[in-house]
């Protein structure tokens, strides 16, 4: 009988240990959220035109627990690009975003055939499997952020209307596409129409948020 009791006691002690360790495990696991990684390759010098794109990417990443690996490159050959992509894939990146690669890719005639790469580009749409770009627009077209002088000119009537390219939307949809790609393995090209801005549009106040700096 005593032997029996010992056996039962052993089982119960084991169960208690399991309970203790598993609850510790649960506590630590739930406190740290798992984050995804996205690689972003930017031109080397800071350009204000990319600022709204980066704003959108950061806003989306903040809300969707994504960590960005940001690379600043002066010039990349096709081999160097593939080595960066390979490194990032080893780092568990769910996708790679190239921002205006025409500024740093040396071999622009080549076709870059990567499934997990999305290029935000103005001139290299055909070089990549997936791209994000603005539709062609009549001039005068401006990228966000638009300077105060331009708006003043519209307000004063010196310019009739302008077309703005919503770089915020471009950046946001690009990283959103990479995020959904990581889930569905499906990526398609993004083409964003330009927004016509005239005096009435400014006065309506709809675009205030985009125009403010």
């Amino acid at each position, binding site marked *: 009988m005593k032997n029996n009791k010992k056996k*039962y006691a052993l089982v*119960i002690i084991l*169960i*208690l240990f399991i*309970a203790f360790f*598993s*609850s510790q495990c*649960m*506590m630590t*696991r*739930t*406190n740290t959220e798992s984050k995804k990684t996205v690689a972003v390759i930017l031109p080397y010098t800071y350009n204000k035109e990319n600022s709204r794109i980066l*704003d*959108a990417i950061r*806003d989306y990443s*903040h*809300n*969707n627990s994504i960590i960005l690996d940001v690379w600043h490159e002066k010039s990349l050959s096709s081999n160097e690009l593939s080595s960066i992509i390979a490194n990032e894939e080893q780092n568990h990146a769910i996708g790679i975003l190239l921002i205006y690669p025409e500024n740093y890719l040396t071999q622009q005639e080549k076709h870059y055939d990567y499934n997990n790469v999305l290029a935000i580009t103005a001139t290299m749409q055909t070089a990549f499997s997936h791209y994000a770009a603005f539709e062609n627009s009549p001039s005068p077209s401006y990228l966000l*952020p*638009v*300077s*105060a*002088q331009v*708006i*003043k000119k519209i*307000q004063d009537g010196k310019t009739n209307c302008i077309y703005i390219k*919503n770089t*915020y*939307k471009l950046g*946001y*949809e690009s990283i*959103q596409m990479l995020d959904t790609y990581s889930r569905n393995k499906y990526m398609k090209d993004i083409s964003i129409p330009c927004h016509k801005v005239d005096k009435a549009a*400014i006065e309506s*106040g*709809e*675009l*205030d*948020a*985009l*125009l*403010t*700096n």
Partner: protein
Amino acid sequence: MNNKKLSIRVLFPLIMSISIVFCILSCMILFSHYISTYLVRKTIEETSRQKNVLAQNIENEIDSINSIMNNIYYNTIKKYDIQDKNFKTILANEITSNSETIYGLALYDTDGKNLWHSNNLTSTSMQNESWFTQAKDNIETICYGSKKLVYPDNVKQVFQISRYVEYINHGKMKSGVLLMQYYTDSIDAILEHYKNTQNSYCYLLDNTSNFLYHPFIKEISSGLYKENTTKIALNSTNYSIKKLHGTKWLIERQQIGYTGWNIVLVSSLFNIHTENMGIYYVIWLLLLIVGIILVFTDILLFHDFTNPVYQLLDTMQEFGKGNYEVKAAENGIGELKTLSAHFNIMAEKLQNQMGEIRRNEREKRKMEKKLLQSQINPHFLYNTLDSIIWMIQSGEYKGAEQMVSSLAKFFRISLSQGKDIIPLEKELEHATSYLAIQNIRFKDKFEFSVQADKKLLHYLCPKLSIQPLLENAIYHGMEGVYDDGEITISVYEKDNLIHIDVSDNGLGMPEKVVEYIMHNRVVSSKRGSGIGVRNVDERIKLIYGEQYGVTIESELDEGTTATIIIPKLEETAEINSDESNKTKL
């Protein structure tokens, strides 16, 4: 065996376990429910507190804006004539010293015509602007209008704040409207510090439900996000919990004093769930373990308790199979132990009783065997056959013939086809046959007579009852007698019982001899049946009961009378069939 399914060993722990499981489950459910309501309540409290702080901060900012406005009004506009040079310089200074926060100031008369404006503003008439009409209609308060886009060197936004003023123009006091365009930065800073995330954010609505501040305003303008909580917020008083896109959201609203703006805080309750998953897991695990341990313990304990019962059960089964030597192990708790002990006592008693019954049976068998045996006593047969041969050889054919027929009758009735109880008539015949044989053999040593009540002859009587008494009478009673011996058999009814007397007029027996004969297996002579008087007595007692039997009365020199007392028993089919079954053994 066929009740195995309803075995108490399985049923009882099963019921206990089911009830434990039920209790634990209900505990789990209650706990989860309580904790989730508690957490939700805590979140509501927390959000309320933050809401109050935010509202307070915004109200403080509004206060300071109001004081700037009032300062400008009371210290400049009310004091100086607008034509006065001081008017313009002081106001210009005011603007330059506050250039970080004030974009522009302008003064209008009641028709909307511009009287003075700071550098950034223009002199267009503002008659139709809402802030203008509002200020005109509410002369006591400062009106907070909608936002406007301005673009000095950066594109920024300002609040249009207006109030009714009285200004002096050429010495005359006139009514007008003062407009201040105040940068939204300070209010934005307060709301920016809330640390807005997708699951917990706040936004500010003006009194026409337009967004004054929204953390995702850029996404909203780009068509990437839609704010669904505005209507719900405005309809609820303090807070409301609504299910949007599949998860529950907490929406709290507070109205900002003085301006009629509304601050709305939105929190996702789903996050609380996942963040606190650890607590849920620990509690469920704890309850689960408690449940398992309880179930384990109750099964164990129950087995411990019922083991002795099952051992007892096994013992009883063995006992029932016929293994009467088994004893139950006396272990167990409390009453279970006494159960085993009492069972053992009962088993012993049963054993003893069975032993006794076996003994009695053996005795009976013995006696019946003897009876059987005696039914054919060889000595009597030899002697009588000898006598017959002698008589035939002597030419006493009549005597031999009588002896042979008497012997035949004697043995026929002795056997009586195996019956042990025969009618009294037959028993008397048997007795008389015996007497006749003995009479011839003893050469008329004695005389005998039979006096029987005819009414009693059909009653039953154990066979070979009278003959042993006759044996006694002949061999002991007739000892000292030569030719006037008398043996009388009388059968009469007394006290509703049948009495059979065998009397002789011999020497009689002293008391001691009577005792001796009654209590010992005295066989008078081997020449007789070999059954003693005691045997007859015992048989009668065995068959009829203790109150019947044989009694002997004797008087020395007078004679001896042996009396058989039996009840009146009539012949029925059953009695003899039982009897015949017995003797068949």
